Every structure is written in structure tokens, then in C-alpha cells.
């Protein structure tokens, strides 16, 4: 008999942050971006020699060396930003567009400029494409900018949460929130996958990953006592405000016979106890203690 007591556990991003066990501290791109600069200047690529010969000889060599240096600096700055934000830009364009309606209103309401832009790239290896319209208003007292239209396409992944979140963000036209929430969401998914894989590697006989390591549930079975199974369900949820909240639940699968012997209501209290365990020990230690619990039956 399958007893599924489904209770939500809200472990907010402050209680148990994703811990990077396998990476050294600091974002790799940050230091890479800094190192990228000097290296570039010392080794001019071969195609430059061709362009140099096409230029006029007077001061031409210096100009291209200077351009090269500028390009090196720009590209190292770009790689620094990519490492910092996790966003890599593949394509970008921005153009001024016609304002809908009359242009005679420019006198009273101040200067209004409408820009249309496209941005495409990857955020933590999830490709995205977005188109937006930016309306800038400049009056005597202040200037303001508003995003008047936003359309986002994210490559469909196994994360169904994302499509709902993207639709909400398009409605609210919150461009920055898109990147921020996407970053936190993917970080949590990555952390979940690493954690599940870690436990699978450590206890291959006990741990089942029915949906694969990227899925949201992990089953724990005792090797010697068949029929008992604990399922840890870990969903990453993006709420209305764009906040990313991981939710962990515990489902139990107990044979009917054992349930009748359960006088102390261990099964009924299990999800609640797991929630307490999460708050006390954090995610990894809580799952580890569940595994130890099943192992001691040997």
C-alpha cells in the first residue's frame, strides 16, 4: 500500500544555500577574465598580419596594434562579465523605432525615444532569445525608461516550471527579473543534480533515480528489508514574485502489514520529522541521515 503524505517544506534560499563542494571558492570566469587581458596582447593572431599589409604603411602597424589591444581589453571584459553573471551573449542588436501615434506631442511631453532590441545567448547553458521595446521619456524634470514590450523564448528543457515563469515575466515585462530568477533556478537545479548524483555514486544499491539525475525525485530502499521505500521529492519552485524556493517532501512506501504494527505512528510523522531534520542539518546531511537509517537495518 502506498502511503503518500505530501507536505510541503519551504527551505528558502537563506536557510540552505547551494554549497559548491567540488569547486574552489570564487567564480572561475572572474579570474579568467582578469588573466585574459595580458595574454592576448602578447600573441597577435595570424590574420592580423594580412590586415596590416592592407593598411597604409605610415603608422598603420601601430594603429592595428592599438586596435588589437582594445579588442583584447574588450573581450577580457566580456569574459569577465560572462563569468560573473553566467550569461553569454551570442547576438545583440538595438535600433531606434518609430513612435506609434503623432510626433507632434514631442513638444509638451518632452523627448520620447522608442528603441527595439534583440538579445540572444545562453544563461548557464540554457539558450534564450528575447525581443523588447524600450521607451525613454525625457522631460524637464526627470527622465525615465520603461520596457513596453517583452517577448522571451527559452529553449524547452525538462524544467516545466520555466515556461510558466517565462510567461509571467513577459506579462510583467520584468527583464532583469528574468535573468536573476533564471540564474537562481538553474543554480538550484544544478545543485540538486549534483546532490542526487553524489548519493547515487556513494550508495548505488540503495539509491534509485527513476527520472534520471536531473529529475526531481530520489528513491531510497533498504538493501535487506524489501518493500520499504522512502522517496525524497525535491522541486524547485518559482513563486509569483520571481523568488526561487526549493521544496523538499518525503513520501513513504510501507507494506500494509507493517502499517498495522506501526503503533507509534512513525509513518504519519515521517514527513514532519524530515522537515525538522532539514532545518537542523541542511539538505545533504538530512538525506544522509535517512540513508544511514535504512542501512542500520543490516
Amino acid at each position: 500500500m502506498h502511503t503518500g503524505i505530501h507536505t510541503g517544506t519551504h527551505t528558502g534560499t537563506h536557510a540552505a544555500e547551494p554549497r559548491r563542494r567540488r569547486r574552489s571558492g570564487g567564480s572561475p570566469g572572474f579570474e579568467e577574465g582578469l588573466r585574459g587581458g595580458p595574454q592576448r596582447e602578447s600573441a597577435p593572431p595570424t590574420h592580423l598580419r594580412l590586415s596590416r599589409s592592407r593598411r597604409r604603411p605610415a603608422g598603420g602597424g601601430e594603429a592595428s596594434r592599438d586596435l588589437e589591444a582594445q579588442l583584447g581589453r574588450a573581450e577580457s571584459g566580456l569574459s569577465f562579465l560572462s563569468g560573473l553573471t553566467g550569461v553569454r551573449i551570442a547576438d545583440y542588436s538595438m535600433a531606434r523605432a518609430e513612435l506609434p501615434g503623432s510626433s507632434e506631442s514631442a513638444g509638451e511631453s518632452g523627448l520620447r525615444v522608442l528603441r527595439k532590441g534583440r538579445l540572444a545567448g545562453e544563461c548557464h547553458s540554457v539558450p534564450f532569445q528575447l525581443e523588447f521595446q524600450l521607451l525613454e521619456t525625457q522631460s524637464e524634470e526627470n527622465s525615465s525608461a520603461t520596457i513596453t514590450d517583452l517577448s522571451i523564448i527559452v529553449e524547452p528543457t525538462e524544467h516545466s516550471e520555466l515556461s510558466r515563469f517565462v510567461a509571467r515575466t513577459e506579462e510583467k515585462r520584468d527583464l532583469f527579473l528574468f535573468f536573476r530568477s533564471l540564474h537562481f533556478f538553474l543554480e538550484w537545479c544544478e545543485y540538486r543534480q549534483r546532490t542526487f548524483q553524489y548519493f547515487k555514486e556513494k550508495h548505488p544499491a540503495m539509491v534509485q533515480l527513476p527520472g534520471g539525475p536531473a529529475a526531481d525525485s530520489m528513491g531510497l530502499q533498504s538493501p535487506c528489508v524489501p518493500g520499504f521505500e522512502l522517496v525524497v521529492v525535491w522541486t524547485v519552485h518559482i513563486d509569483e514574485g520571481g523568488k526561487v524556493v526549493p521544496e523538499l517532501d518525503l513520501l513513504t512506501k510501507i507494506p500494509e502489514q507493517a502499517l498495522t504494527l506501526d503503533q507509534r505512528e512513525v509513518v504519519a510523522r515521517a514527513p514532519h520529522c524530515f522537515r525538522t531534520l532539514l532545518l537542523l542539518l541542511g539538505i545533504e546531511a538530512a538525506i544522509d541521515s535517512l540513508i544511514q537509517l535504512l542501512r542500520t537495518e543490516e
Partner: protein
Amino acid sequence: MASSQKHVFSLTGVLYQLERLEARDQRSAKPQDEHQGLQDSETDLEAKIRKLRKLRDELRTKVKLHEASARIPITNLEPYEPLKNSEENLEMKLEKAKAFFQAFHLTGLSGKLTTKGVCICFSTAFEGNILDSYYVDLIIKKPLTIHRHSVPVFIPLEQIAAKYLETNFQHFVYSLSEHLNAYSGRKYQADQLQCGFSAFLARPLQRNSLCTLLSFTYTTDPSGKSFPFCARLVYQDLTTTLPTNVTITYQGTGATPASWEDQRAAHEPLFYKNALYKVFESFLRVREN
């Protein structure tokens, strides 16, 4: 240091006055007059001019700083169309790199490498409205230190830095971005309520600097005939723009009619789920119907 444009204009107003005074002095210095009295007043004026010049220079630097920090980077994006040319020469590559660099402002996080470290620019927005931007200047050395920043004092920058700066730099940046965006959003909502819906407010809006505690008295009928509602919104989570606690009470003598209680019960969930100005927009729509 994200100041409003009004402040900048008052400073430039003073600069304009100083320039006029200087021009007047130059004009009045021309005719050579033997009168001692005039000469005395001239030396007085000279001293005054020197003092004012000094003040002008100080104010000019202040204006520059204010402009730099109050700038909304996303509006500085220059138009850029990539040329569909397979062989990109060096200049085109540089143009492209520079444009991509600017495009990072669209992600809300951008920055540049400085001589000693890096300067990160945080842009904030709320529901499509681009708001203030802040910067943090870091010096690269062991340990990473924050050299300068324009983050307001009530944002827990030191705590976030202590927690993440050394161990996970990306998380530090995103966590700070969360706090700043949430603060900007709350401030924007409070400002909109104060300016856009002042007819509904029986008393002015009261708030703390972090905008995590808002207290106001409103009516659904601006003509003042209905009983007022005294609302108190608490935002316990510094990274959200929606309140965690909403209490609506009646502060006055006498009993409240049943209709007031019904309205109160209907209003409370609205504040939990929607931005402040959206709630009042719905009041406006109800009144117009």
C-alpha cells in the same frame, strides 16, 4: 547616492548664478576708476569672486559625481546592428565586442575592469519601469575588499559581503542585486501611491527608509464619505516586493458598519498579492463603475 534629477538641477542653477556673477565682474573690471571707494569695492568683489569660484568648482565635481551615480545605464545603449559579413575585420570585431559589453546592462548586471579591480553596476527595475542603478567598486587583493559603493546604508551590504564575497562571488553579486531590486521596487510602489493616488489617502504615507514598513490611511471614496481604513504593511523578507504582513484596522471611535468589515476582508488579500498602485487602480475602477 542615487539622487533625483531635481537635486542636480538646483546645483546647476547655482552654477548658472555664479557664472553670471563672474561675467558681471569681468565687465565691471574694464573702466579704470581713480576713486578709492570704487577700488575698495573692487577688491571686495575680487575676494568674493575667488570664494565663489572655489564654491563653483566644488559644486561642479559634486554634480559630476551625482550624474555618474544617478545615471540610468540602460538608456545609454547606443544603436547597434551587426553587419552580416563573414569576414569581420578588427574594427568590426571591436565594435561588436563593445556593443555586447553594453548589452550586458540589459541583464541587470554589468561592470568593467578598473586599474585596481572591478566596478560592478547593478540596475534595478520594477515591472518594466527602469529605476535607479547602483555601483560597487572592488579592489582585487587578498581578501577582496569593497573600495567604494553607492549602495544605501540600510541595505545589509556588509552582511552579504561577509557571507559570500570570499567564497562565492557570483552569489554575492546576485544576492545584492536581489536586495537592491526589491528595495527599488518597494520604494517605487510607495512613491507611486504617494504621488498618484494621494486623493485616496486621508493622511500622508509613512514609511521607513528601507520601505519595509508602510503605514497609511485610505478610503475607497475620495470625497471622504466612507469610513477610513488604516493599513499597515510589513515586508519581512528584504528580497521581495510584496508584503509578508498586512493589517487593516479602524482607528476611531464607534462601531464599524458591516459593509466596512466586508470591504476590509476583501481588501486584505489584495495587498498581499498585488503591487500597491495596482490595488488602488482597482479601487479607482470600482469607483468609476
